[in-house]
């Protein structure tokens, strides 16, 4: 295990953890319910760590990414349903990320939003075309670390640490009306969906194959999952806590993604704001790249095409055409003028519906001794895996009713 590689991997995971949905829902959760939803972030983070570790282990041991084996496990019909659902979910998520980055660029430059969206998509396509895989992942992830300024801002405003600490204890605030209780439930489901997006697992396992992981990389996989995603989650929690401290008492509703950047502007002024916006730009642009590639990985792996960005684009031609087409489709959604927040809400809804279909075959594969031998799921991974599968199943059932009953969390 190379310590430099491991550190870079962990830092990349930290910088790449936050995407547009986490940014929006962390800020809104903090301003609406104070610190009471911190535990949901922590709880969902353990879930994504469990499944990411599993998918990385399957990639390292069976040498196959999740979607290659998903079809074998689920069969052609159910596999195709899963593929279609995950492609729709990741496409909407990608459109939300592209729209989100264009909005952030709009804050930074003042240029028209839709023109920025077109320019940005061209730039993202060019970056995937030109840069080798490991540096695509690292450059966006590492530059996303500018967002640490938001965590530093939280420390600078001297928040009530005991209240933040008590937010890690599972709770439902007392004295809520039925409507508020439903809204709390909707936020909890949305946070679980945002943290456990299915594309993250597809991207992580395919990334493991791209980087040629083998059994000797199992420790790297475990540490990257646990430490990288754990620290990334703390970044998202700092957005929530800052929002609770700064926006909640003044009844500010952080309706647009850029509001979170103001958290750094309050203690650090103009440079705090610029650093936060830059961090958000690279983190969300990285998420756009990940969702698009994850989608192309899924399609190529399902049909047995050559895939991977460790190859030159012309060496995996159908994969290349697919990711370019998906970026263009995401841009087309943005160009319809649909609001970014609406896209974020749809992305959250579709994702939570897809989550059980994503995680069931992964659980079965990672526990299958025929494929995994001695590296099959142990007792802890089995218990945690099935527990979180039950949780995402319940969340998937509750998501649509909660969305309609609360008008998408707006009460």
């Amino acid at each position, binding site marked *: 295990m190379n310590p430099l590689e491991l550190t870079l991997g962990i830092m990349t995971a930290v910088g790449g953890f936050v995407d547009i949905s986490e940014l929006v829902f962390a800020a809104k959760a903090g301003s609406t319910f104070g610190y009471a939803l911190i535990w949901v972030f922590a709880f969902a983070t353990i879930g994504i760590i469990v499944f990411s570790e599993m998918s990385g282990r399957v990639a390292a041991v069976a040498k196959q990414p999740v979607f*290659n084996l998903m079809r074998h496990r689920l069969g052609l019909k159910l596999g195709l349903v899963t593929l279609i659902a995950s492609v729709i979910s990741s496409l909407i998520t990608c459109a939300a990320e592209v729209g989100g980055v264009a909005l952030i660029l709009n804050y930074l430059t003042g240029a028209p939003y839709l023109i920025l969206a077109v320019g940005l998509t061209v730039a993202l396509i060019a970056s995937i075309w030109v840069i080798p895989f490991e540096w695509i992942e690292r450059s966006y992830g590492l530059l996303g670390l500018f967002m640490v300024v938001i965590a530093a801002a939280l420390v600078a405003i001297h928040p009530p640490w005991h209240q933040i600490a008590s937010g890690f204890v599972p709770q439902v605030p007392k004295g809520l009306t039925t409507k508020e209780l439903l809204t709390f439930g909707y936020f909890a489901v949305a946070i679980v969906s945002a943290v456990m997006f299915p594309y993250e697992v597809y991207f992580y396992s395919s990334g493991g194959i791209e980087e040629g992981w083998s059994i000797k990389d199992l420790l790297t996989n475990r540490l990257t999952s646990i430490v990288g995603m754990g620290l990334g989650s703390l970044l998202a929690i700092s957005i929530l806590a800052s929002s609770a401290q700064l926006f909640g008492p003044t009844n500010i509703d952080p309706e647009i993604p850029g509001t979170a950047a103001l958290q750094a502007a309050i203690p650090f002024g103009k440079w705090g704001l610029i650093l936060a916006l830059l961090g958000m730009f690279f983190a969300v642009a990285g998420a756009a790249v990940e969702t698009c590639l994850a989608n192309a990985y899924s399609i190529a792996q399902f*049909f*047995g095409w050559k895939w991977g960005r460790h190859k030159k684009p012309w060496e*995996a031609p159908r994969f290349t055409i697919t990711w370019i087409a998906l970026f263009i489709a995401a841009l087309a959604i943005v160009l319809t003028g649909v609001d970014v927040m609406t896209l974020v809400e749809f992305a959250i809804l579709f994702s939570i519906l897809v989550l059980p279909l994503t995680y069931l075959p992964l659980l079965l594969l990672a526990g299958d001794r025929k494929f995994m031998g001695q590296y099959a799921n142990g007792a802890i991974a089995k218990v945690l895996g099935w527990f979180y599968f039950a949780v995402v199943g319940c969340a998937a059932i509750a998501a649509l009713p909660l969305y309609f009953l609360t008008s998408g969390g707006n009460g």
Partner: protein
Amino acid sequence: MKPDGRIKLVSELLDLPLIDSEGRYCGVVDDVELDGAAGKTLRPTALLVGPGAYSGRMPGWVMALVRLLAGSRITRVPFSKIRTIGSAVELEVPGEAVGLNKSEDRAERWIPHKGAL
């Protein structure tokens, strides 16, 4: 697993990815061709690869859609060309030798061969 042993067709072969002797993905086992007759031993003779091989595994209206979008091509890969069966089916020949990779080759003509580091 060697291809001459006993094989559970559905759980150990169907829908597995195919990797050729150059280490390239070149399709998925969409169906299996069997030789034999009722009451006699059935032997798998070839893997069938391509959208045409979905027929019988999908409802009719889905197949009509598949034919419209992807055609009905089927490539037959003789069982004798299989090296091992595990988490993927590994072939002992390049994909081109058994008629695979044609769509990839056609798609490659559309991609500029420059600009990538």
